[in-house]
Each structure stands twice: as structure tokens, then as C-alpha cells.
């Protein structure tokens, strides 16, 4: 059984949804981790859930990236353990510089909440190995700051290293460069994504595509 931690910052609001998926749907060992915690030794993986950590003050993810837990996650990732950031969690991981780029306000400056088609671009990461390359999955997005941005040279490197994990297919909802919806670090153990797999992992919620990401983690 895997020991999977779900990070809780003040203002996280997808923490219990994610905890529920890990504990009740995957039946793995789940534990909520407070943002003041410094020791992650007992975990195999940690998930940074969606929400509005620290009220999105300063910039989304900016203040959460300066907490003791965030510092511990940097060391945790350096050991090759698995880290997934969803939505605000992705924003925190870019602010932490564990992932390249930044997430800017959506091009239309509106909060966008809908289902989108996502193309799976890299199946060698810890969170996508049960998916097929170029497979299209349907996942919900719900964010105001999801426009992926990186300076030209960084963007080129991300593409060259195959660090794009997910791309919006068809319509680009928020103006992300190269339609990027998710990226990984160079070693593939850290992944960040704007869509919410925890919101689409049960039939009663209208789909199971999110499960493929969770099954990749525990496979």
C-alpha cells in the first residue's frame, strides 16, 4: 500500500476531495499534511490540491511556496519521490521552481469552469504511465490563473525535453503558450496540471478519466 500525503494550506479547498479519492476510491493509505510540517519521510507521494492557498494573495501559489511544507517538498522531490500539483498545486510548484514556467491570469481575465479535451503528451511520468500517448481524455478545469507562460528559451527547452505532459485539444481555453495544460520536471517524478482529475474519478460525477491518473500513481 502506498502512503500518499495531501498538502493542506490555508485556503486549499480540493484537499478533502483528493483525500477521498485516495482513501476511499483507490483504497491507499491517505493522510492530510499541514503546511507547517517539515518531515515527509514516511510518504511515497504527496499531492498539492486545488484551491486558493493564502487567498491567492500576491500571486496564486506565491505565499504557499514559502512555507515549511513547500521547502520539505523540494527535498522530497530531489529524492525522486512523486509530487503532483493540481490547479493551485501546479501554481505552487511553479512558484517553488520545481516546475518551469508560470501561470498567468486567463487571457479573457475570467474564471473558467468547464470540461475540456486534454491530449496526453508524455506517458513516461509517474502520473501518466497508465495512459496512451496522444490519448484524449476529458477533464474539468476551474481556474482564473491558468495561462501557462514561459520565456521563449525556457519554452523551447520544455518542448525539447518532452516535459509537456498535457495539452488542451481543440480550443485553448485560457491562452496558454503551446496549449500547455500540464508539465513535468526533467526526471518526470514531479507533475503539475491545471485540470482536476479528482473531480472526474467516479461514474456518479459523470466520468472516470481522472482515475487513469490515479491508477498510474499506484501502478
Amino acid at each position, binding site marked *: 500500500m502506498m502512503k500518499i500525503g495531501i498538502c493542506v494550506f490555508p485556503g486549499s479547498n480540493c484537499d478533502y476531495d483528493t483525500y477521498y479519492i485516495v482513501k476511499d476510491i483507490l483504497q491507499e493509505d491517505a493522510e492530510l499534511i499541514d503546511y507547517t510540517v517539515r518531515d515527509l519521510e514516511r510518504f511515497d507521494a504527496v499531492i498539492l490540491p486545488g484551491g486558493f492557498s493564502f487567498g491567492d494573495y500576491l*500571486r496564486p501559489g*506565491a505565499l504557499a511556496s514559502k512555507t515549511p511544507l513547500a521547502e520539505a517538498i523540494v527535498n522530497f522531490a530531489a529524492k525522486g519521490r512523486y509530487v503532483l500539483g493540481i490547479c493551485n498545486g501546479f501554481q505552487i510548484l511553479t512558484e517553488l521552481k520545481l516546475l518551469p*514556467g*508560470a501561470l498567468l*491570469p486567463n*487571457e*479573457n*481575465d475570467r474564471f473558467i469552469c468547464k470540461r475540456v479535451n486534454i491530449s496526453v503528451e508524455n506517458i513516461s511520468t509517474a502520473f501518466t504511465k497508465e495512459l496512451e500517448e496522444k490519448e484524449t481524455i476529458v477533464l474539468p478545469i476551474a481556474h482564473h490563473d491558468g495561462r501557462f*507562460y514561459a*520565456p521563449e528559451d525556457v519554452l523551447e527547452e520544455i518542448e525539447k525535453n518532452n516535459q509537456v505532459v498535457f495539452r488542451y485539444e481543440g480550443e485553448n481555453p485560457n491562452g496558454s503558450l503551446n496549449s500547455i495544460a500540464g508539465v513535468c520536471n526533467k526526471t518526470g517524478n514531479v507533475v503539475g496540471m491545471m485540470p482536476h482529475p479528482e473531480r472526474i474519478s467516479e461514474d456518479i460525477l459523470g466520468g472516470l478519466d481522472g482515475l487513469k491518473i490515479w491508477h498510474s500513481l499506484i501502478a
Partner: protein
Amino acid sequence: MIYNKIMKKRVIIMPKEGILDPQGRALKDVLNEAGFDIKDVRIGKIVEIEADSLENLQKMVEDYIINPLIEDYEVL
């Protein structure tokens, strides 16, 4: 007793040149709609902050306050 000289500074933070600023664009559109002829409006933020040295101020701003990938700053 040593008294540290505390200074109060204003830090202006702006989205980097060339990065789309949707808030600025919305304000520009409203102003042009109202009959002004505006080419560009950009919206940033001001942080008013106390520091005991310019060195510490710079450290706080660069390590904790701005994201250098997307923002520039200026101390007033």
C-alpha cells in the same frame, strides 16, 4: 542600545514587458470606448514595506515578493 534605522519604501511591481496583462487591456478598452485614445494600459501593484537596509529590502523583494519570470520591480 543599538537603534536600527528602519526605512519605509514603496516597491512598484509590474508585469514584464511583452506579457499580456488582461486587466490593463480591459481598462484600455473602457477608456477608448469613452473617447480617449489610449494605446496601452498596464496594471501592477505597490508594496509598502519596512526594511533595516537596502540589502535586506532587495532580498525580500527578489526572493519573496516578485516572480522574476513574469514581473519587474522598482524601489521608490
